[in-house]
């Protein structure tokens, strides 16, 4: 029996909404005991947490896969390394690979390879439609059996309402969740910024923020019509938050997420045409940023994700309009995500729930607990420690982050997967 005793930690269990001080004993990959003054069994490794927080590992439900096909941007190995460095113990991976993950074999292969790496657990999302072309549905049942936890056409809205209607309907057979992207395609064609004063001053092709609401409303109506399960994100506007809140009140089976960048930056960041601030959807106004934080705080926005999108120099060292959108986010998810807690907008436990309990529920995973019997996928972090983001020190193969040099608060000290320490921050 391998055992590990973590002493003197703040034990945070967001599912039970409890916070206690004490120790945590891990044996055979599971939590064996929690509480004050635990005794280490013989041969157990003992770690002093020195008052740091111990919580279930983060579950990131929005990362973009680059392996196979674009391993020069991110290989599966570097992605799981980056994940555990960010305290992420499980992550959903959108099928942005080449070939596209849309057959049972490639799903199973992804799961197997990630298991062999033994770091963060990879939860493959399979394409919703063949070749993500938005026409013919993929084999939801067989893909799910092979290990696909959701179906998504990546960061691309399904243009055809009939196809999405059928996807939502058919997915009910397997109680599968359909992920959609909240941007109306016609309105956002060629656009790379939010319509408004900033885009006008910069002369950038822009789309109105209403392009998000338009798509969200349509997807909500189709979800209501079919009784299917929809997950939509990243949500970036207050109007979309309101629409989702109203739909949830009506009993529509919808969940949503936002990404850490949208609660941290607003459209002003695109000044000077820095392509590291080009996202999809694009950064919004300050009013929208505040509304998104409010939506996250009141639970309308269920989950906080990284929207990890690795892009190399060749994809970013271009003009703003030509550059690929997206930023890496696995290693900045926790310090950026803690923002609303530091600002007093949310409790730390609620915030952790958006990073653990909610994503698990959306993907149909067991409830992450810091309790006896739970799988020991854990993160040990200091929420208050000052940290300066350094892109060069990141494990991601691509370094496309606008947060390089940002002073933040929140440091991942160690990450455990199945009771094994898979990441430890160098002192």
């Amino acid at each position, binding site marked *: 029996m391998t055992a590990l005793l973590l002493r003197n930690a703040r034990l945070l269990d967001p599912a039970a909404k409890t916070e206690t001080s004490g120790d945590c004993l891990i044996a055979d990959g599971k939590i064996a005991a929690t509480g004050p003054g635990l005794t280490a069994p013989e041969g157990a490794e003992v770690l002093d947490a020195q008052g740091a927080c111990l919580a279930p590992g983060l579950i990131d439900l929005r990362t973009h896969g680059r392996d196979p096909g674009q391993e020069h941007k991110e290989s599966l190995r570097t992605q799981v390394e980056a994940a555990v460095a960010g305290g992420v113990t499980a992550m959903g991976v959108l099928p942005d690979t080449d070939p596209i993950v849309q057959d049972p074999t490639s799903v199973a292969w992804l799961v197997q390879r990630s298991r062999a790496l033994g770091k963060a657990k990879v939860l493959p999302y399979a394409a919703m439609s063949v070749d993500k072309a938005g026409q013919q549905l993929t084999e939801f049942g067989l893909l799910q059996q092979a290990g696909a936890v959701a179906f998504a056409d990546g960061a691309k809205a399904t243009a055809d309402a009939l196809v999405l209607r059928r996807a939502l309907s058919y997915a009910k057979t397997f109680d599968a969740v359909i992920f959609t992207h909240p941007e109306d395609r016609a309105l956002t064609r*060629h656009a790379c910024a939010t*319509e408004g*004063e900033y885009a*006008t001053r910069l*002369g950038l092709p822009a789309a109105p923020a209403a392009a998000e609401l338009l798509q969200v409303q349509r997807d909500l109506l189709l979800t209501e019509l079919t009784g299917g399960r929809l997950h939509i994100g990243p949500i970036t506007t207050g109007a979309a938050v309101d629409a989702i809140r109203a739909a949830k009140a009506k009993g529509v089976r919808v969940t949503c997420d936002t990404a850490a960048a949208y609660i941290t930056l607003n459209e002003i960041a695109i000044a000077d045409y820095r392509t590291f601030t080009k996202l999809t959807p694009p950064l919004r106004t300050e009013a929208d940023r505040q509304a998104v934080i409010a939506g996250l705080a009141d639970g309308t926005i269920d989950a906080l994700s990284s929207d990890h999108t690795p892009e190399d120099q060749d994809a970013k*060292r271009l*003009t*703003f309009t*030509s550059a690929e959108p997206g930023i890496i986010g696995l290693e900045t998810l926790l310090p950026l995500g803690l923002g609303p807690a530091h600002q007093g907008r949310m409790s730390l436990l609620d915030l952790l729930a958006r990073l653990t309990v909610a994503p698990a529920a959306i993907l149909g995973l067991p409830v992450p607990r810091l309790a006896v019997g739970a799988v020991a996928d854990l993160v040990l972090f200091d929420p208050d420690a000052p940290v300066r983001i350094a892109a060069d020190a990141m494990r991601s193969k691509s370094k496309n982050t606008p947060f390089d040099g940002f002073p933040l608060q929140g440091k991942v000290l160690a990450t455990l997967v199945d009771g094994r320490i898979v990441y430890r921050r160098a002192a």
Partner: protein
Amino acid sequence: MTYAFTHRHLLGIEGLNPLDLRYLLERAESYVALNRQTEKKIGTLRGRTIINLFFENSTRTRTSFELAGKRLGADVINMSVASSSVKKGETLIDTAMTLNAMHADVLVVRHAESGAPHLLARKLNCAVINAGDGTHEHPTQALLDALTIRRRKGRLEGLVVAICGDIAHSRVARSNILLLNGLGAEVRVVAPPTLLPAEIDRLNVRVFHSMREGLKDADIVMMLRLQTERMQGALIPSVREYFHFFGLDREKLALAKPDAAVMHPGPMNRGVEIDSDLADDIDRSLINEQVEMGVAVRMACLEVLSEKLPAVQGAQ
């Protein structure tokens, strides 16, 4: 006139203060007379290398920059890169890096994408002049327009300038709005809503959808080219309808002040934005003066930026 112009590049009117603008106009003013002499050449920039790097077709602006450089005694190289062969931005950076390695002193850049000169300015140690980037800015055009207006009207302050036409796709309009506002003119924009960018009123302009209202009591009527090559989708139903409502003819011009002058950055679509006979009316049209002032303004910009260059390349 001694003035400390602090900018290394000229990427836009944005970021220049009124003193910067006046200084550039004063310097340009001094070159107008030189350009009218038989001997038009001086040696201010002898030994300097200026490269015109044009990723978009242009005759007028490129020629103007070329003349400006040559009249100041610099070596001027023209590079026209057909946009079709430039599919990727790294070509833009690679090309620029190559020119940088050849010790160009000033790079004059025109590009179809907004922000392209800014990208180059971050990577290079030569001075970069924006000769038009996408739908963003065209600073030397705004400067030459201001100089033209000032010479005709004696001032900019308090004048009413109506900018008419395809504002949405116009870098000329953006630069002019910033510059004219900076120097105290009242700026109006006149266009159908489909040709106006979002929240343009935030740039301190009054918005009109009717030429009749927009031109009322204007001192200057600045027409813009209808950028048909940039039109994506149905922004106007037809050229015929556009000219009927938004083209400048004598009847519409009659609503402006009796001595109102007409401007156009060129090249003109006669019969689309402007009535042909009006464009050629030397009493009302400043179109040829604009071209003349263009050379003087570009000489001033090249000279002022060259003064900022280190004596030895690579020195800070």
